[in-house]
């Protein structure tokens, strides 16, 4: 197997997990920054439409690093999708595959099912719920909880903060309820 073939394969969890964990010390050491991504959404509000709301009334420019960081994530996405991805079909759990097929989702490729997440489906009830409502819940919930997977589950638990353990447990409960008990009804729409 040559190097390029090796890189274009999907990476196993025991390579990716530790690399993500290393973001915590790297950000602390290069600038005393606490790892967190959803705060970039708050800075966007503070920068673009603060509307005299106390919560957005702060000097967002002091948090510029966070915007540079998420810009990097976007660029990393562009780079990987164009140069580092193998074109092999994605291998998913057969049970999930069968379940999705029952809802007419048969094209299992890429990172998101095109039969749900595409401009074509945006204006359908399914599209509105999954793309628009889903995004809204992520933004509202992350800020209400005071952080997302990066800020709470990884940074918070790494620094042994019990409120973050509570938040991460609630993320999981919400996700389990949605995926198992609510999503089937949405997919059946």
């Amino acid at each position, binding site marked *: 197997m040559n190097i390029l073939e090796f890189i274009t394969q999907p990476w196993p969890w025991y390579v990716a997990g530790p690399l993500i964990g290393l973001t915590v010390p790297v950000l602390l050491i290069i600038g005393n920054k606490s790892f967190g991504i959803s705060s970039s959404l708050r800075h966007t509000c503070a920068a673009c439409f603060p509307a005299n709301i106390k919560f957005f009334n702060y000097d967002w420019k002091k*948090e510029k690093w966070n915007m540079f960081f998420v810009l990097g994530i976007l660029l990393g996405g562009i780079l990987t999708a164009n140069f580092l991805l193998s074109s092999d079909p994605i291998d998913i759990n057969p049970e999930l595959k069968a379940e999705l097929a029952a809802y007419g989702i048969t094209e299992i490729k890429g990172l998101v099912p095109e039969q749900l997440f595409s401009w074509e489906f945006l204006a359908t009830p399914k599209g509105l719920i999954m793309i628009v409502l889903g995004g809204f819940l*992520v933004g509202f919930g992350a800020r209400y909880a005071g952080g997302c997977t990066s800020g709470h589950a990884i940074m918070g638990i790494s620094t042994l903060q019990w409120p973050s353990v509570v*938040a991460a447990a609630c993320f999981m409960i919400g996700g389990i309820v949605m995926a198992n008990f609510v999503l089937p009804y949405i997919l059946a729409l």
Partner: protein
Amino acid sequence: MQTTQVQSKEFEARALDSICVNESQLEHKWYHNIKYTLVGIAFGIVFIKAEIISWYRIQEMFRFQSFHMYGIIGSAILVGMLSVLLIKKFNIKTIYGEEIILHPKVFNKGQIFGGLMFGLGWALTGACPGPLFAQIGSGATVIAVSLLSAVAGTWVYGKFRDQLPH
């Protein structure tokens, strides 16, 4: 006096979710921020290569159909925890020689209510905020709508923050 008041008000707003209250007093030129972009690029590559931003992997996680995501989050926490321990033990400083400061998160009911809402959204979009950026970059441009919607959600939270139980 005036400045102190403004400052303390700002501290209050910034401390609400403990973002950068440990902000460095050092002033840097803007291009110092490029190092964060480089970290972000590395992070985005890992996100996609390990399929963390895959809607299918998130569904498998919430249905207990695959160990993949649990392995990633678990080992990320372990490495993060170990690094923080080492930083504390050896009193490691930043590259500018500053003390590394970690601020405690304060518990409020938002972590429960907000956490549950976040979970519901995570299972729908298959992405938490970081992956949203990476998914757009990877070519799923419609996810830009999810991202704008997430910004809207953040704004609505800010607007009604005082009326919500905390």
